[in-house]
């Protein structure tokens, strides 16, 4: 009976802990809105106004003459295309450099160097390469998401327990079998981790890129547009939507996938 109760307590505690960050953000946000209004006389959108505007926009109100669904859709499309390119190149590079030593020696510093460049610093490069428009945005996403993916995949391949490789060789595995059936699955947790970080990086860069090299649609573009029309509440709605989508993908989707893999991959916990 008492253990039943303590299980409920534990559940409640966990539930409270997971909504706590949201409560803190709401309180700080609402307080800031009040203080700004009192001190500067500026209408700072409160959480409630923002949620109300969100419902309006979801209900069909136009933002920069375009439905919010179109903005979300075009942002998602750019993100996934840019991320797709980065994921393909990053995984391919990591696997190649992980297997061929001279490739690693010659190039392993490059993703490290790229990692040091903030996403927005690519704007002049993107504009010079592609002009203002869709390809420039996608380039910025791809180039920023590439490094974390490449670095994690390479590290994953390099850190594989030598005994896995020995066991495979001992059972007669040739190079292809070793690569496809041992190295890639063994590195999978690192590969997933890299993809998750890359996805998050890409999303942040996307929004910033849309603000500057945007082309009439997208959530980042809408934030800037709403500022010109003094519809600050709509800007806030966009920020909220961006945050939610990012959270959904990074935490819920990929993190679960990663957790599953790591659970199975680690053999420390013994089932006696």
């Amino acid at each position, binding site marked *: 009976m008492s253990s039943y109760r303590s299980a409920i307590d534990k559940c409640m505690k966990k539930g409270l802990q997971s909504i706590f960050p949201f409560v803190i953000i709401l309180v700080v946000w609402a307080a800031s809105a009040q203080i700004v209004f009192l001190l500067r006389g500026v209408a700072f959108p409160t959480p409630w106004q923002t949620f109300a505007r969100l419902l309006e926009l979801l209900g069909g109100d136009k933002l920069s003459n375009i439905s919010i669904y179109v903005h979300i859709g075009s942002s998602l499309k750019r993100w996934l295309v840019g991320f797709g390119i980065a994921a393909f190149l990053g995984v391919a590079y990591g696997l190649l450099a992980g297997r061929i030593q001279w490739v690693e020696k010659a190039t392993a510093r490059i993703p490290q160097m790229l990692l040091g460049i903030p996403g927005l610093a690519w704007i002049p490069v993107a504009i010079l390469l592609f002009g203002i428009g869709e390809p420039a945005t996608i380039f910025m996403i791809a180039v920023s998401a590439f490094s974390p993916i490449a670095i994690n995949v390479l590290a994953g391949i390099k850190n594989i*327990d*030598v*005994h*896995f*490789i*020995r*066991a*495979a*060789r*001992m*059972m*007669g*595995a*040739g190079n292809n*079998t070793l690569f496809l*059936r*041992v190295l890639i*699955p*063994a590195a*999978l947790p690192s590969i997933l981790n890299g993809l998750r970080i890359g996805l998050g990086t890409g999303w942040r860069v996307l929004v910033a890129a849309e603000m500057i090299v945007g082309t009439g649609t997208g959530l980042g573009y809408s934030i800037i547009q709403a500022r010109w029309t003094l519809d600050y509440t709509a800007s806030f709605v966009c920020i909220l939507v961006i945050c939610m989508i990012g959270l959904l993908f990074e935490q819920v989707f990929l993190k679960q996938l990663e957790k599953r893999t790591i*659970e*199975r*991959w*680690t*053999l420390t*916990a*013994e*089932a*006696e």
Partner: protein
Amino acid sequence: MIQLENVSKSYLQNGIWFPPVLAKLNLTVTEGEFLCVLGPSGCGKTTLLNLIAGFVSPSEGRVLFQGKEIRGPGPDRGVVFQDATLFPWLTVMQNVGFGLRIRGMKGRLFKETTIGFLETMGLAEHAEKFPYALSGGMRQRVAIARVLALEPKVLLMDEPFSALDANTRERLQDELLKVWMLHRRTIVYITHSVEETAYLADRVVVFGGTDAGLVADLPVSLKRPRQRNDNEFIAMKDHLRKCLAEQPCCIQPQTLTGERNQ
């Protein structure tokens, strides 16, 4: 069947040659023999095994297997490691069948053969489980089944049961003997336990570290099945223990990170 001729092994690390782990070693293993290699930790027992397995190559001298120089690892020499090193992304059955699949075995034959080897080790009902769901003893059983499935000419075992609890260890020793009696495969078994040596071996070589090399090479002629509380058994253990006590204990390993991959 296996010959080591004047074998020395040193490791190169960060551009520095470390003093040899093995020096001018000679050893012959005959077919069908259960050979235990007994020695203090850090004396190069594992290096000896890795040389026969083909994971590392000798700095000097030659290692021959059936008259031919060993070029690398292969399924004719099955290795059971100290940790089971099962592939965690494969089920028990897929782990056991890994070598069979490489040889192109598929379908029903694959299933029946792997189940057969799992039955040998008493694991048939765990075929669909993943390694993380198994206990340490069960994992080591799978590791043995995986090597038996290769039908190797030699089993190389590197302290395979040392991480297990005493009860599990003794049971697995019995199972290993059962399998060995059935097929009479050559076994090279690395251990630091005199008890294990006295129970398993036909012949034991005692390793005394780099400078000493092989300090003893003696037959264990106790009748099988052996009894752990038998007087002769206890006398054998005492004798081995004395041999081991003459060696320096806790030798410093010669390398920091172990061997390089192959």
